[in-house]
């Protein structure tokens, strides 16, 4: 399950964009969006998802339950 950003809460501060190890985050119409194909939930990079850690607004970067979990390559 990759992460997604709830755009109505996103302040467009761009903090997550620079922290994402997969370069999965980009700007779209003033707020930021996570490309689910690139998101690895920071597995193998960090202890916790960097977008969640740096986001100034709580509960804005959340797990996208509509998608399958990220599987690290075997």
């Amino acid at each position, binding site marked *: 399950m990759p992460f997604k950003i709830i755009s109505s809460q996103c302040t*467009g501060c761009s903090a997550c964009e*620079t922290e994402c190890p997969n370069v999965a985050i980009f700007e779209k119409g003033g707020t930021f969006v996570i490309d689910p194909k690139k998101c690895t939930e920071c597995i193998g990079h960090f202890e916790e998802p960097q977008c969640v850690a740096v986001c100034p607004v709580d509960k804005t970067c959340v797990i996208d339950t509509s998608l399958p979990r990220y599987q690290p390559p075997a």
Partner: protein
Amino acid sequence: MLAAEPKGCGTLTKRGKASCGAHGDQGDLPPAIWDKVKTHPCYSVEAHHHYARMHVAVAPACNMQCNYCNRKYDCANESRPGVTSEKLTSEQAAKKVLAVASRIPQMTVLGIAGPGDPLANPEKTFRTFELVAKAAPDIKLCLSTNGLALPDHVDTIARLNIEHVTITINMIDPKIGAQVYPWIFYNGKRYRDLEAAKILTTRQLQGLEMLSARGILCKVNSVMIPGINERHLIEVNKAVKSRGAFLHNIMPLIAAPEHGTAFGLKGQRVPTARELKALQDACEGEMNMMRHCRQCRADAVGLLGEDRSAEFTKEKIVTMTVNYDPEVRKAHQAGIEEERRARSVPRQVDVGEHECGSSDIKVLIAGATKGFGLINEHFGHAKEFQVYEVSRSGAKFVGHRRVDHYCQGGYGAQDDLAAIIRSINDCRAVFVARIGGRPTSELNKAGIEPVDQYAHEFIENSAIAWFSSYLEKVKSGQIQHVDRGDGAIRQDPIISVA
């Protein structure tokens, strides 16, 4: 309750001049430092009457959360840090700087102050500085940071010739820090509470020491949060002074609920004018205190206290023809310097005349001004009042009071007047260029004397002249000298309930 006699700026040296740069004269500052601050409106109280600054909002991201900050909401009429109407790329910012420089020749300083933390956006911040240094080398560069990432960037700051750095330091005790900062993001990890505050204070003080060692002028900003850090800020002051900070700016907390900040929503009290002044006076020893901060936005343009950012929106800059001519700017600024030299302010009331028991009388007065240290504003049009403390040792600038005309439409003219009177309630007189009949009688009723006889003269000189006659009247028993109580630094906005 803090009580301390002002020292430093308020006392007179042998030459009868105040002993710090805060009065605008060189005082005891070494020439090299004076050269750096004399045209920086934030570093010299007198320069701020003449020189303008601008901020460019190229740094939206932040590496921590402060309880007094919320960058989510923006209203064009709000003036507080962390607020901006539009974000810019480095290239747009550089173009904006040139556009402003060519239209406002007294703009001498470019600062990057957010709306997040400039050093959490190092590429954007430093690229902007590089572009501006190349295109407009006469503009001073300045940045304002929370200090968390500062030690990593000191070398770059020195290399790019950024002469002024402001660090916001609200505590040196992690227990207090934990009440101000819910979390920080450091080295790829989020830290909370005590642990976060411990890392933060270590990094801040380390950054300050590194800057001082490289001869970069450091201003320290502190937010005064009643009940949390007001006493502790005296310790902070000592800590930053001993590490070479040049100037300390203690600012009142802004915490209106509608800003949506944690403090605002919690109903955290903001300091009164008297509390703020007492704390500033208590810290004013060997160190300059800044009292003229307007807590401006991340996209402010113009003289402190005026905001011309609406003239320089992205949309408008695109259509502007930029004609940046350093010679024109130089000539204009030489004119300003000429004007500054011509301005002589007597700093002492003639002591001989008042040999009476009233020698230690101090009163606050307010001046309606739109800049240049002059009484040049109509009472009803004033956006701010500058407050001076007058005593036998002269007039000393102690702060300003904002008069907001709120966009929510909650004020009628009557409420406006009441709010203005509340804001200068601790002043004995208000100096204006002109004033109408109703405000005159309302002010008199409130015990504030409206004075219009010094229209278009310098506030300081006028205050001293007025104070002489005030002392005479006290001496002759014509008036009673009484304590005026307290004033509100910012009015509470009235939100109309629809």
